């Protein structure tokens, strides 16, 4: 089985979010970048497929040279090879189109992407690549088993979960549940050394149109201080929620 894991290079959750160039660009100054959390669960699940059933695992990212450390980290975790599509990730569709080209060229059976990236939160890339490559698609995927070309997956729905069957080629939008947080792997020294020798191929992008464009960013208005209510004065809390906040 050939598995492709799509990796987003995103600012760590604890990063300060600031913008530059007249609020049009994300300020990467002093920001620590990580593998997108939803992608990391998928990467670990891919490693389990490789170890238990035999599979090759390729990781791919759309981005400039500055995103390579994130791909090297994925290699250190255990992926066999990496591909970097050498262009700026401008919007979800453009990313999906670039990835689809790599998927079609590489003939992957299973594509694992995160349900959304924690930076732009588009949540559209997995579905778009399924649509563009005509593969089956399971979003919000919290478990996945594959036998031959048949797949059984569980997807999170509003208020519960649902079990589905489908077949390869398959794209999933993965999240926590594919593996648990305690299953995530931290690269060890041997992995880091080996990752240096693993192939990291840089491919040039295909032409794509800008279906959407980012005009500018805004930060939310800073929040006022919390209104404290004494534990023996809960009538006041009910009153505030009803008359001031108007939410009950």
């Amino acid at each position, binding site marked *: 089985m050939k598995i492709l894991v799509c990796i987003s290079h995103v*600012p760590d959750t604890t990063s300060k979010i600031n913008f530059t160039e007249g609020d049009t660009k994300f300020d990467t100054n002093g920001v620590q970048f990580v593998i997108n959390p939803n992608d990391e669960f998928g990467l670990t699940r891919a490693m389990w497929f490789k170890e238990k059933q035999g599979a090759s695992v390729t990781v791919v990212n759309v981005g400039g040279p500055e995103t390579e450390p994130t791909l090297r980290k994925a290699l250190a975790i255990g992926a066999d090879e990496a591909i970097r599509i050498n262009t700026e990730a401008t919007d*979800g569709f453009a990313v999906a189109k670039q990835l689809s080209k790599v998927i079609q060229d590489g003939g992957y059976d299973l594509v694992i992407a995160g349900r959304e990236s924690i930076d732009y939160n588009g949540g559209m890339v997995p*579905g778009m690549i399924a*649509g*563009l490559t005509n593969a089956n*698609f399971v979003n919000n995927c919290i478990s996945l088993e594959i036998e031959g070309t048949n797949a059984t997956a569980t997807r999170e729905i509003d208020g519960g979960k*649902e079990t589905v069957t489908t077949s390869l080629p398959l794209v999933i939008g993965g999240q926590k549940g594919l593996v648990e947080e305690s299953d995530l792997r931290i690269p060890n020294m041997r992995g880091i050394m080996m990752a240096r020798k693993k192939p990291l191929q840089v491919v040039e992008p295909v032409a794509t149109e800008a*279906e959407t464009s980012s005009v500018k960013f805004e930060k939310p208005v800073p929040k006022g201080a919390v209104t404290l209510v004494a*534990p023996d004065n809960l009538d006041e809390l009910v009153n505030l929620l009803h008359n001031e906040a108007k*939410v009950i």
Partner: protein
Amino acid sequence: MTPNWIWVLFKVYEIINEISTFVEIKNKEYIMSVLVYTESEQGKFKKVALEVASYAKAVANQLGTTVTAVTINASDASVLGNYGVDKVLNVTNAQLDAFNAKAYADVVKQAAEKEGAKVVIVSSSADSKYLAPLLAVGLHAGYATNVVEAPSSTSPFTVKRTAFTNKAFNMTTINTDVKLVAVSNNSFGLVENSGSASAEDFAPAIPEFGVHVQSVDKASDKVSIADAEIVVSAGRGLKGPENWGMIEELAEVLGAATACSKPVSDLGWRPHSEHVGQTGKPVASNLYIAIGISGAIQHLAGINASKVKVVINTDPEAPFFKAADYGVVGDAFEVVPALIEKLKAFKAQQ
């Protein structure tokens, strides 16, 4: 006499031409409608369906056009007229009883094409966010998600969306001829319109499913986190799963959904489906009540889209107090039962 006849014929020709041009213009206006997918569950509209209908009406007003809704196995679509829908395309097909993203996306695509819709609106429910990327590819539509306001401009078509997990807003333009917008839950609200919708049966072609539902595991008597206006959430401060009775009671009094922090779901005290936060379910409720939750940044990232936040915690230094609107420093085991009594009394008065 002959020249006169020619003149009359020419006049008749001119009049026919004028009428057909007029009809063409009317048609053109008509086929520019805004299409909204109004989703239902067991025949009943979800609350988000009425919210996206309200949003579609606002967009249609800006564009000077009408709203067409497409429904799938909804039992009574007349309520949509109250939220600004002018016309409903009702799809009734037993094959579509269980949700299938590919088939539903195809149905909405065919409806959009039939109406010549230039703007298509969906909600941010798990199902809509599942089908929308497939729909975007099918319609060659630029797609913006997590949209929180009506377009600030329709030419260029510009919307405000959340990004960086609610730590920022992003103004985005959609450049394609057909535009697809997913509205963030509880961001626009319901806007009533006195009107009525005409209804029409619509029988689109149904594609191969590809993905087949085997079983659904869902508590049908509970409000889901996605649909809830109020979410009551509890954390490790509750000490054990046996103490959740009061959380469920508080939720019941408020008509709220129950949720929990990540440690609680990791410990197996509550099901994973209740876990909210960055790696769990996103919450965008009107009111979020956090009980015994310290407020780790990953938790706050997932719930920050909620409008009003209340925290109940023994530790006044808990980071949640910085993110909350209202706070009670106190022991949940005393505060929650007392709050339930106060709320019961309040509800009885209403």
